[in-house]
């Protein structure tokens, strides 16, 4: 499967908490945490296991304006960080 067709879901172990427009995600397994700004938080929330990376880019483009392709780098980077933290998993796993 091409990377743009991949789908991701939240790890059941992830602890997330809102703080104003931002969010903090904590992974108990690694004792690491990440702060998400408004954009990163939107990407996290769109990773619901049903949307592909392409879908997420398109959804964000509708919300914030611009072309989906222009958002691809930011989406990939955010997903990569969240996967490294262990709080985002491939939907198929």
């Amino acid at each position, binding site marked *: 499967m091409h990377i743009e067709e991949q789908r991701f879901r939240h790890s059941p172990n992830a*602890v997330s*908490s809102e*703080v104003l427009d931002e969010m903090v995600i*904590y992974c108990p397994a690694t004792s690491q945490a990440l702060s998400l700004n408004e954009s990163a938080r939107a990407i996290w929330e769109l990773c619901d296991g049903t949307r592909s990376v392409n879908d997420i880019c398109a959804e964000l483009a509708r919300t914030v304006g611009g072309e989906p392709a222009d958002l691809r780098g930011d989406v990939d980077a955010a997903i990569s960080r969240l996967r490294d933290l262990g709080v985002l998993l491939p939907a198929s796993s």
Partner: protein
Amino acid sequence: MGRNDFQEAYLCFERHCVAIRSESPEVFAFLNRFAGRMLSPERKGKKCGSLKIVANGEGWSLRDGEEDPRQVMRPQLATRILLHAAMKCVIRVRQDLLWLHAGAAAYGGRAVLLCAHSANGKSSTVSELLERGWSYLSDEIAPLDVIGGSVLPFPLNPHKRVNDGTTLEHDDALRLSKVAVDLDVNRVAAHAVRIAHIYFLSWAPEAVQLEAERCSPSRAVLELMANSLALDEGRRGEIGNMCLLMGRVPAMTLRFADPRDAAQHIREQMGAAVRDSTHALAHEHPTVAIQQA
């Protein structure tokens, strides 16, 4: 040695206390030096732990409940380990509070929380604020009531690192010895104080001037987590509490070479906050002003 040879004192926090037993007056002399304001010869409140220190020819050994004793050679280090063990007992029974490695001081009924890793100016900044007439809450351990948005007094005796004027690299500061800070007993806060600002301190000897930067709420939560004293089982719950707190209290990072600059900045910010609240009060309650007139 018989049971009656042991003396007992209690480290007290709010409605709990930890019993500390030793047969050595030297142990209590050391404890008094670090935690005199929190020690009582009588039990106050519910006992939540029991610690025993035995002094022998090889040094001191600490027994925590039924655990095997830990051998510690130097009394000063043993005292700190003892205090940390006592603190863990208190944290275990007060998981409703957020426990941070932080200093806290108050002025005009509002408190600032100063978070930093060791040797980053926490105690020195608290000391500078005390010299400017502020009240003392803590210079190392700060228990926070998140619902009330306040910090409770945890008045271990304040100490700060002293430098003889030698130019230091950052890592050198950890090797500086600590000295007690003179503290007027009337300047120790007796009750919880509402938190007005949270500062994350960074001592940087190379800094030319103080650098103050607004800290985003989510980043502030990460900083709080890095300074948390929570036991592992309390980790999950504390994140929600930290987010709740940081949604209400502004946070800044301060980078400085001289703690006097940090204290001056904090004082100015607090002055502005007090002025703003007075102004807001006047507008929120105009009828009170009319009646008084």
